[in-house]
């Protein structure tokens, strides 16, 4: 588990440097990616890869939105590196590999797995992105609370 935590953190930080994220945000990117991947691995024991990717993605997007509102910067900065550990690169590679090896049924199976994961990620992103923006600001909730009291 410690290996998972350290490696997903380092990998995401590396990817954030490659996409020129400002230096002060690299740490948050690493945190986002780490949370996503650790969640994915933990959920994998209970449910299918697609479902765990869905929930992990939701967590990643939620975390990046919170960071984005907090640090007043575009959500893209955290989201792009954060989602990378979940992108089904392995499945895409095996699709190509079995395709070349002429094992077409295996290639198809891996390809469909990759599609499933991709759709899970898409849904995870769409669900959280559709939450209205003001829900993430503290002022809004303070205002709501004070309305409630009055």
């Amino acid at each position, binding site marked *: 588990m410690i290996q998972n935590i350290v490696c997903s953190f380092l*990998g995401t930080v*590396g*990817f954030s440097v490659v996409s020129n994220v400002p230096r002060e945000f690299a740490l948050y990117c690493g945190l986002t990616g780490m949370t996503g991947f650790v969640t994915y691995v933990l959920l994998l024991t209970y449910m299918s890869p697609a479902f765990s990717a869905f929930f992990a993605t939701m967590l990643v997007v939620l975390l990046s939105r919170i960071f984005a509102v907090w640090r007043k910067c575009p959500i*893209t900065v955290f989201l792009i590196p954060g*989602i*990378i550990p979940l992108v089904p690169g392995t499945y895409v590679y095996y699709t*190509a590999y079995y395709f070349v090896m002429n094992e077409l049924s295996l290639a198809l199976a891996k390809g469909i797995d990759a599609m499933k994961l991709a759709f899970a990620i898409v849904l995870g992103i769409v669900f959280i992105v559709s939450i209205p923006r003001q829900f993430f600001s503290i002022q809004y909730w303070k205002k709501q609370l004070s309305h409630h009291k009055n």
Partner: protein
Amino acid sequence: MYFGVIFGNARNGRTVYRCGNVKKVGTIMESDKIKIQGNSSDLRAENELGKCNNSEQPEMHRVLELALEAGCILLKNGAEIFRVEETIWHICNRYHIEQMDAFVLSNGIFLTAHQKGEENFARVKYVPLAKIHLGIVTEVNALSREIAAGKLDIEEAFARLEEIEKMPPRKDWQLILASGLSCGSFCYLTQKNTPASCMAFAIGIVLYIFLLFARRYKLSKLIINIVGGGLITVLALIATSLPLPFKVGFSQVIIGSIVPLIPGMAFVNSIRDIADSDFISGIVRMLDALLVFVYIAVGVGCVLIFYEQVLGGTIR
């Protein structure tokens, strides 16, 4: 509607007035919606309002050019469609241009604006796809916030924008090292094999050197990804056929080394554009991401076929 107060006349015949929370000196624009207070400045304010159309025209061009430039820089460096639209809108709104329409696609911005029914500004700007630089997106976003808050005047904003556009990417060695780092750690994540991730680290470094070289000579995306995929495979085949004491499957190495080629930006942005109902841009970017995956697969596949069928190697 009541938006501002005229304080009176300053030196050299200019008017000091307040619009919202911003204190201004100069010509009153009609869009400032001033309520005239006091008797002495009544006439003057009327005159100013009459003049404002002619004197504002060059100003409007500058504002729209600023908005267009900011949008173009954002789009080029990997921002979403709605962020570009919002930035253009914020800038125009701040400088009181209300009759403005912006239409943003994944590689073009269409901007028209007119005043008093007379068309004044229309530009179509083609924005080529470039490499992503999220630092620039962050900076332009911050600049847009400052402009919207009324902290900057237009010439200062232009200067800042120019400065931001020249912002260099990270130093080459940092990029190369980071690429190696992410390859190595993603390899370890999926494979749990230390020698394989060391190899992936080395291959990631070589791959990024190739990518930097390719970007310097502006090779097309197709070539970059096919050759990149091929390069990874060749290196992985060489590395795994070395006489080493531990067993490493080359698939393990390739899976790690593929990471710097993954089109993360295109994938995530396409989803976000589709979620915002910007379907055209979303589909274009989605196709971009899918094609990059196909190119990588073609590169890897070609080398594997060549290795197996021409050189007679066995794929482990």
